[in-house]
């Protein structure tokens, strides 16, 4: 078991290194010019060139990558030129470790941008995750147990409806009806949980349900399918033949086997949460990571894009690792792999 975990950790680290190289390579060796953003409308080629030099963008990609990796553990300054730093100390931006880069567009350190937006994204995503797991898996189990009856048909039909609608449509529908017209849910608004826990909770209810609706529908179908598949297994007949009550057969024997693939899917979805729910954040005007990805791509703010991609990749790789290990814990047959 230990070797299994160690092997998985090493694989995850290697994967992250490769991802960072590839991401860096794609963006910085690509055709767009980050220096173009640094000076607004009236840009002379010489000022662009000067900015490019100041940001270190004229160095080869490999050197830029090395600087980036160095910046993860030690501090960096922008611009990198020590002479410039001595002459104009107030125009130099100091970037403490871990340094993910500097966005000339927003004139902020990328780390600060991420740090500002991460709580927002986490608040929406984690809350919605809890809701969609509980709802999706719970309803899926009910649908499987009551197969063929009205509960099953009803649940499957409703989940099909939600699954078919695009995320923004559900979000707007809910915003319009649940919040504005019928006033069942408070208007969406983000306040930090440390400032106002009650306000935080209320302001997030609508985004939670609108994001959860889509995913829950998928989980209902998945859970129902895996439950039905497991319910036909021989070992359940053995369990009943031993004299176990139906409750025990379902909750101890069936669920554990049926939920194993659900854990995998949920784990991967959880990793994906850190990329942010771009559509939901945009509809409800929350300043989260997903929103940042969309805006930074539309203006080609490369340092931000690169950093966000890497943050998302990091969490997804970590989630994969956790899921792999969890799978070994749940299913003993896998441990020999």
């Amino acid at each position, binding site marked *: 078991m230990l070797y299994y975990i160690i092997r998985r950790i090493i694989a995850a680290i290697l994967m992250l290194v490769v991802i960072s190289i590839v991401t860096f390579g794609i963006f910085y060796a690509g055709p767009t010019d980050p220096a173009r953003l640094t000076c607004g409308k009236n840009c002379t080629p010489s000022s662009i060139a000067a900015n490019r030099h100041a940001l270190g963008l004229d160095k080869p990609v490999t050197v830029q990558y090395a600087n980036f990796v160095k910046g993860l553990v030690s501090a960096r300054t922008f611009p990198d030129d020590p002479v410039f730093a001595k002459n104009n100390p107030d125009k130099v931006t100091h970037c403490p470790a871990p340094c993910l880069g500097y966005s000339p567009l927003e004139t902020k350190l990328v780390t600060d941008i991420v740090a500002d937006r991460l709580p927002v994204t986490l608040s929406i995503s984690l809350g919605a995750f809890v809701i969609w797991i509980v709802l999706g898996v719970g309803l899926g189990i009910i649908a499987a147990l009551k197969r063929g009856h009205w509960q099953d048909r009803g649940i499957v039909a409703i989940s099909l409806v939600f699954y078919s609608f695009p995320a923004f449509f559900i979000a707007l529908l809910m915003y319009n009806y649940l919040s504005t017209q019928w006033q069942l849910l408070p208007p969406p608004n983000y306040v930090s949980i440390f400032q106002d826990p009650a306000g935080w909770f209320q302001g997030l209810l609508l985004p939670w349900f609108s994001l959860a609706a889509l995913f829950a529908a998928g989980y209902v179908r998945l859970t129902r399918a895996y439950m039905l598949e497991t319910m036909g297994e021989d070992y359940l*007949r*053995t369990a*009943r*033949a*031993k*004299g176990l009550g139906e409750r025990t057969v379902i909750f101890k024997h069936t669920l554990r086997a049926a939920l194993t693939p659900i854990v995998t899917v949920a784990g991967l979805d959880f990793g994906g949460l850190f990329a942010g729910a771009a559509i939901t954040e945009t509809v409800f005007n929350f300043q989260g990571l997903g929103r940042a990805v969309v805006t930074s791509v539309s203006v080609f703010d490369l340092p931000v894009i690169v950093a966000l991609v890497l943050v998302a990749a990091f969490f997804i790789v970590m989630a994969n690792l956790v899921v792999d290990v969890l799978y070994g814990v749940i*299913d*003993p047959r896998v441990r020999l792999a």
Partner: protein
Amino acid sequence: MSSDPLSGSDTLVADSREPFLEVKDLHVHFPTDDGLVKAVDGLDFTLARGQTIGIVGESGSGKSVASLAILGLHRRSKARLSGQILLDGEDLLAVSDQRIRSLRGNQMAMVFQDPLSALHPYYTIGNQIVEAYRIHNSVSKDVARKRAIEMLDRVGIPNPDRRVDQYPHEFSGGMRQRAMIAMALVNDPKLLIADEPTTALDVTIQAQILDLMKDLQKEFGSAIIIITHDLGVVANVADDIIVMYGGKCVEKGSVDEVFYAPQHPYTWGLLASMPRLDKVRSDRLDPIPGNPPSLINLPSGCAFNPRCAHRSEVEGDRCRTEVPDLLEARPGQSARCHIDAARRADIYAQISGQEQIPVQIPDLVQDPVQDQTSDQKP
């Protein structure tokens, strides 16, 4: 119903041969979209403590369904059951769900065909045996674990204290089946039903498992129902045999009598179709022509009649129109056939006479086919 295992037996042993399990006119029907599947259509038998009865039949003859009915495992399905199943006087078809659950795994237990799929892959063997034990006995986990180790040892699994914490996939096939037997016997059941327990195993392991079951029966005194399609297994372990066809019992009696003086054309066909070491190898096998009947559209009259070679022995068209009753042919043996018992004995003497061991091996030169099998020794 005229077959009575007590008839002709010594009155001194009558008490020990009190029927422990009595199945009376059991019907198990499944309503499906295609029609009513009559999986079991009138089954009667009795079983005494310490006795073994073998239920033999082709796939789809209703043998597994009958055993599941005894355990009450059809209760949550759409099956319709009628008749009586008396376990020590208690009608299992009439008792409450709670009562039958308390009996399952406790007074009566079942061993299934494929131990790899019948054991939960995520729980250790010890965990599963402990669960079977603690359901019916309120003891601590430690006591239950000791009992599990004791049972694993009793069924011949080496290093039971280590094995008890292993998972089913870490056992070999024979070990798994032993573990399943250990799990079934952990509560000292009076009735053990073994549904094709050795079908998934190779022949040498098969012999070990059957020996184990016989030993355990001597030790625990349990009644055993063994369901199989393998006549060799039945000959080895069973005292009595029931041959099932199309949901009904077509022949019933002690193993010796049924094997040496079979009374039903189906049984004749079964015995004749077995491959034999004493036959010349170039002879083809002798299967029963045709296929098992659909349980939804059983043939009218005797279910075996489309495949029976001796229909002409019965006057008129009785085989096709009238379902034969299970009548006693010899003391302690019954068969469900229209042909007169004496006539059946004659027919069988004729057909079995054709399969006698050849006194002389044919001369190798005369038969060119023999050259290919020339290493065959007399």
